[in-house]
């Protein structure tokens, strides 16, 4: 089989795999959190059941909602889906990887957030507004932090294309670098904020005044809510895949590899997901949510880490 055909197959598999696996990751994190709190917790498949239930339900839409409100869930889901399909998970050779590099992926997530925040404002309720306003505050710090972290990684690899970054990081000559360590810490902080996890936001809360993401989507129900939930779990998977691809690309099948390598890559990816989910659950149970106005300090630290990493690489290639 030619390389292009393999890449197309891998891309197709990836397109199906990411949305299919994402609810499982969410379910796994919830399960581990429950076990850490000595609860039994719902089944691992519970997120799938919730999605199925929501999809079957009638959607209740506010009387003054516009077309934007109804279109936003589809746009948000597909924008995040497109971004997630471009992050190599089990194999590096993706036929669409030319479409967007790391900066493009970050910006695609920005597109999704832009429309979701607008949808939050569409009905004209105070909760939608509070959620949208806070989400954009968090994003206005998380996005530049992310760009600086991307710079750090890209300066190391000499590329912003994820397959090249992964190949560079898996290569022999990388070793330990101060800047990469800074980038890893910063990336994890941004990932927590972008996915509305503790300590920035609480995905499990239904106490409206403390929440950001959930307040923004409060008006959604039925299939629209299902898509937004699916998009949220897809985003979590995307960030795990991103961290894994950049900092732990071990086991990932290189471009043009055979079926055996891909299978190995898939096993490795599931293992990485499990590891990341476990660590996330442990972290979330061991820390408290912070006040909204502490979040800028948190994300400012991530921004500074990214800036420092980039600066170190501008000064010396070996740091």
């Amino acid at each position, binding site marked *: 089989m030619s390389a292009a055909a393999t890449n197309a197959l891998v891309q197709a598999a990836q397109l199906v795999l990411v949305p299919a696996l994402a609810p499982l990751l969410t379910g796994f994190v919830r399960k581990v959190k429950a076990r850490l709190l000595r609860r039994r917790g719902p089944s691992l498949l519970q997120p799938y059941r919730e999605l199925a239930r929501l999809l079957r339900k009638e959607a209740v839409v*506010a009387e003054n909602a*516009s077309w934007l409100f109804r279109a936003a869930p589809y746009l948000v889901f597909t924008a995040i889906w497109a971004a997630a399909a471009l992050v190599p998970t089990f194999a590096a050779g993706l036929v*669409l990887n*030319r479409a*967007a590099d790391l900066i493009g992926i970050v910006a*695609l997530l920005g597109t999704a957030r832009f429309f979701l925040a607008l949808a939050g*404002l569409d009905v004209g309720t105070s909760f939608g507004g509070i959620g949208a306003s806070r989400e954009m505050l968090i994003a206005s710090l998380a*996005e530049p932090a992310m760009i600086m972290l991307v710079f750090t990684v890209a300066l190391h690899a000499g*590329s912003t294309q994820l397959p090249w970054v992964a190949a560079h990081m898996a290569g022999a000559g990388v070793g330990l670098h101060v800047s990469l360590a800074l980038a890893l810490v910063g990336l994890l902080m941004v990932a927590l904020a972008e996915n509305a996890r503790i300590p920035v936001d609480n995905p499990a809360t239904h106490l409206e005044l403390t929440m950001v993401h959930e307040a923004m989507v409060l008006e959604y129900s039925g299939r629209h809510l299902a898509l937004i939930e699916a998009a949220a779990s897809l985003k979590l998977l995307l960030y795990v895949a991103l961290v894994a691809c950049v900092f732990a690309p071990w086991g990932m099948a290189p471009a043009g590899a055979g079926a055996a390598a891909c299978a190995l890559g898939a096993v490795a990816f599931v293992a990485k997901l499990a590891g990341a989910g476990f660590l996330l659950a442990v972290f979330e149970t061991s820390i408290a949510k912070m006040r909204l106005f502490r979040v800028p300090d948190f994300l400012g630290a991530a921004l500074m880490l990214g800036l420092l990493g980039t600066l170190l690489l501008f000064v010396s290639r070996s740091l």
Partner: protein
Amino acid sequence: MLPLILALVVVLLAAAVLAPATARSAAGRPLVYGAALAVTAALLVLALKALAGYAGEAAPEALTLPLGLPWLGAHLRLDALGAFFLAVVNLGGAAASLYALGYGRHEAAPHRVLPFFPAFLAGMNLVVLADDAFTFLVAWEFMSLASWALVMAHHRSPGNAHAGYVYLVMATFGTMALLVAFGLMAGPEGSYAFAAMRQASPAPWVAGLVLAAALVGAGSKAGLVPLHAWLPLAHPAAPSHVSALMSGVMTKVAVYAFVRIAFDLLGDPAPWWSMAVLALGAVTAVMGVLYALMQHDLKRLLAYHTVENIGIVFIGLGLALGFQAAGIGWAAALALTAALFHVLNHALFKSLLFLGAGAVLTATGQRDMEHLGGLIHRMPWTAATFLVGAAAISALPPLNGFVSEWLIFQAVLVSPQLPEWGLRFLVPAVGAMLALAAALAAACFVKAFGITFLGRPRSAVAEHAKETDAASLTPMVALAALCVLAGVVPGVVIDGLAPVVTGLVGGRLPAQLAVPWLSVVPVADFRSSYNGLVLLLFVAGAAGLTAVAVHRLATRALRRAPAWDCGFPDASHTTQYTAGSFAQPIRRVFGTLAFRAHEAVDMPAPGEVRAARLHVRLRDLVWDGLYLPVAAAVLKTADLLNRYQFLTIRRYLSVVFGLLIVLLFTLAVWP
């Protein structure tokens, strides 16, 4: 081609001269704007044709007319850079003219607008064509004064006279700085033709002074912080199609002036030029967007975003200067392409957004977002096009704003190759500020679009707004389509810019249209690539397919019901988030530093029957720290000098005598 272009500009001038005769009659508006539309459309076609010609190595056309200074004449020339900016000017000009065919109907004082509109267009076209300092400055002043007259069209509205005054002072100041720049370049021989300036190689300190003067002169017109103060006052004060021209096009003419001086006339750059331009650009980008976030006035918000985008353009130009100083031609080409691409993008989406704001203004009579809301239902076309513009200016893929910012980021990523240590420390910080500005712009446009077009109407006028007319909508739809096109097939723009960039920095980006699948690969295949077309097709296609699948396989049942709002929906529109409340968290995080923002809650005592109030105080530190002291100093000096106006004859004579002594003494000791 140049004589034809000139003839068309003369038609514009003729329209300006004839306009007062017809301005008060009903035929005036279609005649003047129709002529402006025809001329700008023709000029756009000619400019694009010229640009295509320069891609095929055609030589620049030049022409000397026996006008102006007798020993100099008026030199005109159309090279690739001029042709690109000619295209930008006339693209915005055509859109504004077409829009004005409909919008102008609502103009209360057409005789104050119609004569100056074609004159303004003619002035901008002439600036781009000028090939000697005298013609350039005359055209520049023509452009400034015509736009000043347009700003003063509604001079009785509160604040507009002040805006016009500040604009006039700043425009004069800027022209004076340009005069200094050209004077220094012309040297003692007074060789004012650009061709002679290109040949001359000024001493480094002279070149540095010229650059500083050019930064002040062009920067004050473009809106570089701290010279931006007039811009958010003057741009919104003009009628909306003129605001679109001023923000979308005139600031680009200022960028042209800077590019012409710094890259073309002045010779080899020094590394510190790049540092100065980068620092100014980065500060401008961040401050512009922070100012914009604090605004509730839709047009003023857009004007502050012009400041931000000019900052982004200057970041690109600064990087290009740095690379050129270091002799890395291909990287300079990358940064310059990014900057010029952003010039085009900003012309597209800012014109679009101002036209949209104008449509909202005619429909509701309101510029204050706190009185708008819910317009997406009543003005669907305006809302849809404004949304495209808002997404484009927020640098969201797959639209055009993202491509140019992405190219600037790519230029930042190759800048560790710069040898200069100062630049190596500066560039990462500039990159961070650019990213911050982009993210804040997204927040600001969520606010601008969300508060204006979404939610529930906040006033009766917003509730009863009507969609604007077809003539006004056509250019908005066209500009929105161009925003999408430039984002989806950016290769066309990048290749179109190749002759411009080659002429200025001697390098160019690889031909993009040769890359398979219309991807953009600015440096090399393994470094970075972007394909807006694939992203657009994927997102649109997958969203459509998902919708069909969900509707078919699950359910398509939908029920309309009152808003949920956690069980306590309130019918009053005042329970919604406002522009002020949306920006409050950002004001609290960034504003305490940038604006010394101060919030005080005035809580009534228990039992007292009055509303609680939240007082917010923001200080414009640039205005307070720079403009007011300068104004105070000028006033004080004027007061001091004023005394010499009321002297007796005896004292006048002694002053004259004293001066004479001083002059003779100076002559005596002068070597």
